């Protein structure tokens, strides 16, 4: 088990290096450090000295991948890429272009993201499973047919529609909840309700449909027939026996997204003005702040890899037949 764990962690290392390589390549093809300096110093009255100084201040004064001024091994290591990657691996994200500390920003912005994403995830899971089981309960009837077509219709609606319609009707027309923004402490719930509701509703279509196929695979198995033969009611069979066994693939499938809940949702957060990591990232893309984007990509990849690891572990926890090797 421990050896397996170690191997996976070692395997994660080249993946993270690859991730850094890709982000570096993508961003510096667009934005040479000279360009970035010009954008931040303003287009007018820029002297070459000022650019050099800006680059030195922000650590962009070294070549990207290959330092021709140094010899031997140093020509590869004394570069922007290696320097930045080393710092990322020690979770030292450096400063954003406006001088703020990225690590601190991430720490404070993580909680609003989590406050939206975690309830949305849990409530969404419960709602989706309930819908899936109800549709299975009515299988073979017209109600099932209507339910499945309804789910397909729900998943055919653009996510943007749910957000815009929710904001318009619930917040603007009926004024039940604030349109956007975020509050401190106990008052925050008023701002959280609408985004959570919108995320849950927009996820029902694809989520419930997916869980339905999982539970349908369970329903043909022998233990279900035994349970029915014992004379248990169909509802009891579904919500006790099938649900319990069907939870294995459901939970292991859900575990991979758990760590990513920290980074929040890009679109939801920016529509609802939540000061979380999703809106942080979108703002960084729009202002082309490379340091933030790279930090967020790195964080996202680390969390994804942790998610994969957790998935494997959760398999062994819920199903003793699976052994890691």
């Amino acid at each position: 088990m421990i050896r397996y764990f170690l191997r996976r962690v070692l395997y994660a290392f080249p993946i993270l290096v690859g991730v850094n390589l890709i982000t570096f390549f993508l961003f510096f093809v667009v934005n040479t450090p000279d360009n970035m300096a010009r954008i931040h110093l303003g287009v007018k009255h820029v002297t070459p000295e000022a650019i050099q100084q800006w680059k030195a201040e922000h650590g962009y004064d070294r070549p990207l991948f290959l330092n021709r001024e140094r010899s031997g091994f140093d020509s590869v290591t004394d570069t922007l890429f290696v320097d930045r990657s080393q710092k990322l691996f020690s979770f030292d994200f450096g400063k954003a272009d406006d001088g703020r500390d990225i690590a601190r920003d991430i720490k404070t912005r993580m909680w609003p993201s989590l406050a939206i994403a975690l309830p949305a995830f849990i409530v969404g899971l419960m709602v989706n499973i309930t819908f899936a089981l109800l549709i299975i309960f009515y299988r073979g009837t017209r109600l099932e047919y209507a339910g499945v077509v309804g789910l397909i219709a729900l998943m055919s609606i653009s996510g943007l529609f749910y957000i815009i319609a929710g904001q318009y009707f619930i917040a603007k027309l009926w004024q039940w909840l604030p349109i956007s923004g975020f509050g401190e402490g106990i008052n925050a719930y008023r701002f959280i309700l609408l985004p959570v509701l919108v995320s849950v509703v927009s996820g029902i279509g694809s989520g419930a449909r997916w869980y339905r196929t999982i539970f349908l695979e369970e329903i043909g198995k022998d233990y279900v027939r035994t349970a029915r033969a014992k004379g248990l009611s169909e509802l009891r069979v579904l919500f006790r026996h099938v649900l319990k066994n069907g939870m294995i693939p459901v939970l292991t499938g859900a575990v991979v997204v758990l760590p990513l809940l920290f980074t929040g949702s890009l679109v939801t957060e920016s529509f609802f003005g939540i000061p979380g990591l999703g809106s942080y990232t979108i703002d960084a893309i729009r202002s082309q702040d490379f340091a933030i984007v790279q930090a967020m990509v790195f964080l996202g990849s680390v969390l994804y890899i942790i998610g994969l690891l957790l998935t494997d572990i959760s398999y062994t926890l819920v199903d003793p037949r699976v052994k890691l090797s």
Partner: protein
Amino acid sequence: MSFVPEVLWTDALIWLLVFACTFFALHVVRTPVLRSSWHTVLERPMGMASLVVLGVFVVIGLADSLHYRTRLDNGQLDVEVKSILDRALVQLKQHTERTYSAPLATHAQARETIEKPNGGQAREKPRLQFGGAHLADPEKEWTGDVLIRMASGLSYGLIASIGFVCLLTLTLNAFWRCGISHAFSRLWRPQDKDPAWRSLMLSSFLLLLVSGIIFSLADGYHVLGTDKVGQDVLFQTMKSIRTGLVIGTLTTLVTLPVAIGLGLLAGYFRGWIDDVIQYVYTTLNSIPWVLLVAAAVLIVQVFIEQNESSFSSVAQRADVRLLALCVIIGLTGWTGLARLLRAETLKLRELDYVTAARAFGVSGPRILLRHILPNVQHLILISIVMDFSGLVLAEAILSYVGVGVDPVMNSWGNMINAARLELAREPVVWWPLVAAFSLMFALVLAANLFADVVRDAFDPRAAGSSGANS
């Protein structure tokens, strides 16, 4: 005035795709197994109906993919690139108002200061230049006029529907040779294993009636209103169809070779090839998708700005950006299918017929092409149709983030993005949003239902598990 055809990049690729689809259709007709699978798709009412709706979208999209420019009187080419669809809808395109007007309105939405003939000034809603311009007294005549137009549109639709049934009966009679009355009754009471004719006719009726009403109203009004600069919203939504279709199909064209190639190689050869390919797709997967696409689109944007002079028209520039977007989404989106194909190939390579082929000394690439690929093609087909709707929806999200199609291009994402803040206006401007969302919904719903039917018909394992077709 003469016309000079103009072939944009995406046009060429779309027509190539049409060509490939025709070729594939011929192949299906000649292969009994494939033919029976597709036949089950047509037997399902849902499959037939969604196919009809998709067909209408495709026809509109194709009409919008034949571009030309006019040669002006002085011998120079017009800067504007038009399509056949523009020409068909020329009235909608040219009837632009000054600013917002509600659907079927005769007056603008907002009050303006108007000079009265007697010299005074008044704040009132001005009459529209084209919407309801034929009415002398809109207050009294509007209801009657709209009803009459709807009725006449409905009757046109009915006539077209009857014509359609007659044509269908005659065609099938020629095919079955059973007499016209018999063919007609068989259309309504299909025999076993007949395609779902009733569903075909009902969905066509519905479409013909609705489009009859819309076009007879569009003659005198803006059926879906006008936007901020007075452009007809109906025209914009129709033009957006092509963008959605291009993103949904051309992206797959990029994805397929990469996904098939890498998936089969990894599964068949295993060893270090498998390790490398797995490494590549885990790395790609672990980068948040929107960020990856955003970074790549920014590169393309800079590239296009630097080479501004090499594009002779705005349409060309927008087209290159659209193509680049498809390539980017395709190159970042192949991992799912590749993983699926790898797993399937791992299973297939151990089967007896593959072992037998290997024992006969058949080379690796040949085994992949002749023995493995044909046995995973149902997976490929299913993933093509399932991905399509997701891609159409993704366009709207990307346009919202600011890394979608060119801002001058008509697309649902751009329409939604532009109309997002209009809900905050007083009085509220809802029609551009509703128009964009509902057309997008119609296309995506049809595609999803079709995908569901196709999956059931082609995937023996999932067969019977879906209630949508039982």
